[in-house]
């Protein structure tokens, strides 16, 4: 149970959250027409006769969109409905050419499923998914193009959306954020949605109500079309606070649709229940019920990659990663893929088991590479250092060719230039000096050059060992094998 509470004047309040996520389906074409779905095209460049609702035009289902919805359902462990129905949701708006949206009302393609939230420190929570249905997106009204007119862009009109409806199972902004993060991770893993909230290909309607812990559910308000995880969290916080203030002042909550204004940090009413549309849902007579067989579902199941929860468990049990690192690595599929390539290449080159090198690989990846990427404003997808190159670098440390200290410098050059580690080491002459005679010679020179320090050391000032090590390393431009330096230096100092 979440202990997140809104502190009111009259005690603590619990917030109850449910999310309806609209996820744009990755597909070659729109849900019911052959028009393209690419983002960023010129306005009205991707509009078929069907999308523009020309007289006599008819929708025909795009099987790929159905397959993606089924795959998403399977990834959430949800019930798949072999029989579902497309309904018309009727309302007038300028960017809704048909005067209705084709959606699924009574019989959605996917039934109940589960999303497992990672709440940090190994804590998890199950949030129920009530259903996933397929529907058409509307076009876009542009009110800022002309002082008098509104322009309409129908590129988005008819694009397939999955509406993923959660149960009211979340109890804090953190949980809602974790839900969206996890859901986004899953759809990206399976490639059913790109999850880009800033481009609008994933948007959330947030249902918020408050209650005294243990009470019945309160009246909810729906905050429409929130387009980032950060805003979802903020919206929940301010909306819950607003509701608590109203109730504590003796008022009641009206069930209504609201908008979140991130600039003002407030929600405001869009339309009340009285103004709510009567959508007059009825089965779309232009489309037959959607039916498919077990083979279709099995093929969809077979097409699923290893999902984040399973992958995380494997990283921990088989590769020995800790919960935190495993969680970080699996959060994005590209990261997990990078890691697996890195470990495999490293194990092969070092002739060791993957389990023996995985933690080192994970530390380098989450530390050095992620740090550098972050600083450079890059992502793993456009990392200048490939997983294979990373493995080459780690092998050089593993086999003693370079020291960990030098490796950091080499990595910096790799990150800047994209060159291979071995080439850099070669070019810059950074190879570790592990020749006993050579190191001994330098040690002797350093000791001879610092008689005062030697005396103090021998008088008991042990800390000066570090000074001598540093001098030796300096003399070799850091290339001396530090283990050997330590090993050889001490007996000589001790005399």
């Amino acid at each position, binding site marked *: 149970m979440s202990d997140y509470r809104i502190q009111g004047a009259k005690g603590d309040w619990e917030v109850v959250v449910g999310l309806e996520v609209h996820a744009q389906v990755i597909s070659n074409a729109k849900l019911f027409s052959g028009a393209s779905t690419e983002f960023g095209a010129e306005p009205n460049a991707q509009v078929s006769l069907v999308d523009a609702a020309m*007289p*006599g035009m008819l929708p025909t289902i795009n099987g790929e969109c159905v397959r993606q919805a089924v795959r998403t359902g399977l990834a959430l462990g949800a019930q798949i409905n072999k029989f579902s129905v497309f309904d018309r949701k*009727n309302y007038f708006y300028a960017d809704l050419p*048909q*005067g*209705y949206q084709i959606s699924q009302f009574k019989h959605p393609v996917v039934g109940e499923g589960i999303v497992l939230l990672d709440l940090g420190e190994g804590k998890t929570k199950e949030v129920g998914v009530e259903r996933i249905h397929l529907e058409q997106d509307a076009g876009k009204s542009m009110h800022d193009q002309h002082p008098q007119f509104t322009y309409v862009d129908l590129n988005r009109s008819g694009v397939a959306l999955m509406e993923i409806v959660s149960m009211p199972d979340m109890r804090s902004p953190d949980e809602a954020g974790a839900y969206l993060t996890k859901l986004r991770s899953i759809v990206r893993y399976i490639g059913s949605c790109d999850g880009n909230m800033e481009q609008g290909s994933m948007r959330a309607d947030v249902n918020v109500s408050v209650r005294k812990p243990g009470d019945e559910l309160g009246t909810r308000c729906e905050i429409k079309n929130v387009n980032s995880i950060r805003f979802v969290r903020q919206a929940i916080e301010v909306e819950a606070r607003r509701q608590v203030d109203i109730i504590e002042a003796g008022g009641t909550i009206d069930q209504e649709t609201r908008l979140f204004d991130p600039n003002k940090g407030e929600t405001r009413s869009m339309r009340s229940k009285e103004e709510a549309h009567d959508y*007059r849902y009825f089965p779309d*007579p*232009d489309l037959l019920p959607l039916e498919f067989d077990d083979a279709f579902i099995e093929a969809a199941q077979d097409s699923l990659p290893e999902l984040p929860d399973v992958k995380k468990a494997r990283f921990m049990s088989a590769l020995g990663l800790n919960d935190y690192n495993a969680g970080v690595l699996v959060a994005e599929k590209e990261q997990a893929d990078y890691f697996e390539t890195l470990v495999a290449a490293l194990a092969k080159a070092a002739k060791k088991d993957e389990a023996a090198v995985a933690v080192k690989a994970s530390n380098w990846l989450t530390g050095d590479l992620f740090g550098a990427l972050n600083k450079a404003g890059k992502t793993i997808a456009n990392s200048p250092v490939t997983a294979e190159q990373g493995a080459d670098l780690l092998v050089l440390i593993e086999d003693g060719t370079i020291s960990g200290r030098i490796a950091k410098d080499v990595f910096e050059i790799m990150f800047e230039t994209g060159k291979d580690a071995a080439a850099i080491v070669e070019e810059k002459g950074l190879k570790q000096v592990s020749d006993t005679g050579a190191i001994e010679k330098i040690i002797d020179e350093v000791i001879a050059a610092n008689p005062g320090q030697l005396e103090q050391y021998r008088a008991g000032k042990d800390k000066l060992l570090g000074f001598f090590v540093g001098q030796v390393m300096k003399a070799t431009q850091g290339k001396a094998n530090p283990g050997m330096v330590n090993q050889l230096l001490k007996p000589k100092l001790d005399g």
Partner: protein
Amino acid sequence: MMTDLTKLKIADARDLLKKGEFTSRELTEAHIAAVEASGTLNAYIEKTPDIALAQADAADAVIRAGGSKSMTGIPVGIKDLFATKGVHTQACSHILDGFKPEYESSVTQNLWDDGAVMLGKLNMDEFAMGSSNETSYYGAVKNPWRAEGSNNNYVPGGSSGGSVASVAGYAAMGATASDTGGSIRQPAAFTGTFGMKPTYGRCSRYGMVAFASSLDQAGPITRDVRDGAIMLGSMAGYDVKDSTSVDIPVPNFEAALTGDIRGMKIGIPQEYHLAGMPGEIEALWHKGIEWMKAAGAEVVDINLPHTRYALPTYYIVAPAEASSNLARYDGVKYGLRNVPDGGNLDDMYYTTRGEGFGEEVKRRIMIGTYVLSAGYYDAYYLKAQKVRRLIADDFKRAFEKVDAILTPTAPSAAFAFGEKSNDPLAMYLNDVFTVPASLAGLPGSSVPAGLSENGLPLGLQVLGKAWDEETVFRVSGVIEEAAAFSAQPEMWWR
């Protein structure tokens, strides 16, 4: 010219064209002249002589090359609800003012692919809502037939009023039509023409302006049964662009016209004996029964117990779908747009739709909106869907016992203008015999079978099993032969 080419049937013209007795250009020019001369009937609301002549010349080239197809060189009229590329397509509504599609309906494309020639676009009730063609924005169509010794005009029936008037008035050899609750069969009966509504799913609805999607079906109007078989054969066929069209082969309908119905069982639904129905309709039906017996068929009384619920069911389902189908006519994208000065989006909707739709269309949008509304959906729409299933089950049971069903097409002959236009319920009753088969998706024809006491045409309806248009054609052919319907309207309009 040797004969009036406009009096020919499609089958005859097809054979004579092939023999080179005349060219499609000659045939088409004769029809273009007939179209011009038919202005009084108001059957055509858009004439396309240039297109017709170009198609005719192309057809002549095909014929010379020996590549004739079923409709090569045959001039036909097209109901205004079929999209024809670059040509007036408004379903005779004001709200589609100026609309010329950039696409062709599948049904008309099939006809052009088979070599047919387009004379123009035909008048109809607005959005196919009506049984008299009085709701057209382009004015009513006059029935070519007049009562004996009378100069009064009669309605041609609807909604395919222009289609039947053009064919009965010798201004087209055939015409496309559409039937939602009887819009092919009732006007065919009123004009002494043959009309065929095939099984739902036989013809593609792609490019047909929608009225009620689950009921709309295209079909032909022709001057006899054989022509209907030829023309439907061309119009029909599976289409991936219509999810409700069905992928089964189109049989050779003409080959079904064997004239032999010996041993066939013909059902007579007892519920179609309506109280107060004119005696001449009962008498015609009885004649039809005798013709069936004389041809060696066995006549069987059957029951279709839910018949009396068909009209109310239809007038819930069809307006419900229409209210949604017509939502796209909003002034935003095409057709009429009226915005009062300083008006906003809602004002544009009110004004455009208020002025763009006629009274009957508005009535049905309101009925449809009402029956789908929260709180009424279960009582009306959902219940109507259940009753629709029961009506379909009635037919299914009946067709376990019989091969075809024979009924009158309409409860009366053509009526006068204005006679029913102010009484929607009386108007809706026109469809009482045609609506049940529409709800069940079954094929049905109307065959000219005789004249009323005052000399107006009457039709008999033949209904068949789903996908068994062949039996409907065969039985229709037998009725046609037995009825020997040879009356013709006097050409008062030419």
